[in-house]
């Protein structure tokens, strides 16, 4: 039975998505600063600097965190775009399914690149 006192509050995932998109954005901005700093530190990009950077386990973990933040951020973004422009459910569900699959494939690829 529905009470008169019921306060409709929703599932809060709109608010959660909003917050996640901002937190992940800050993580990515910090990583961007780190990469720019490394580029300045090495004074450009040669193979030795490239190898040394990716040989560092901390950098690999930071890169992995960056990619997870990116993919979570991107999921919210592409989902919002799909919901705005792909109206028919019969089309939206396959589109979102393909995007989610691509996203998981990106995670697998990232692991392969960072820890070959």
């Amino acid at each position, binding site marked *: 039975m529905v009470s008169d006192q019921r306060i409709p509050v929703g599932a809060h995932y709109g608010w959660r998505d909003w917050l996640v998109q901002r937190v992940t954005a800050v993580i990515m901005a910090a990583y961007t600063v780190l990469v720019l700093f490394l580029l300045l530190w090495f004074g450009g990009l040669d193979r030795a600097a490239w190898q040394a950077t990716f040989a560092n386990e901390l950098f690999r973990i930071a890169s992995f965190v960056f990619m997870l933040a990116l993919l979570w951020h991107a999921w919210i973004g*592409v989902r919002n775009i799909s919901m705005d422009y792909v109206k028919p459910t019969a089309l939206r569900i396959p589109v979102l399914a393909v995007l989610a699959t691509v996203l998981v494939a*990106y995670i697998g690829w990232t692991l392969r*690149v960072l820890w070959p």
Partner: protein
Amino acid sequence: MAALDRPVAKPRPIYLNLLRIRQPVPAIVSVLHRISGALLFLIGIPFVLWVTQHALASAQGWEATRSALAQPFVKLVMLALAWAYLHHLLAGIRHVIQDLHIGMQLKSSRTSAATVLVISLLLTLGVAIRLW
């Protein structure tokens, strides 16, 4: 009645054709935020993963990647991705600042939108000079 004192309303468009509306600067920055985001997801991520993977693989891989990145078309792709990253980052920073209720007035909102547009293009120009 006050309603009678109003000037005669100009004829308004009865439909919203996005191609016929002159968009305000914040709207342009907003739609470019979307376009750049989609571009980064669909092209940027696989591009960066591919380059990183091949450049790390071996000495030959490094050289092959270098010559691939020197192709004129690939340089154009990199330039587009650089713009997308810069625009998305700066427009995102503007978003977060506005979330803190800073620069919410119409005038400052337009100024910050124009700033995002111009600075990301200037930085992209810098990338272009670096690439060629």
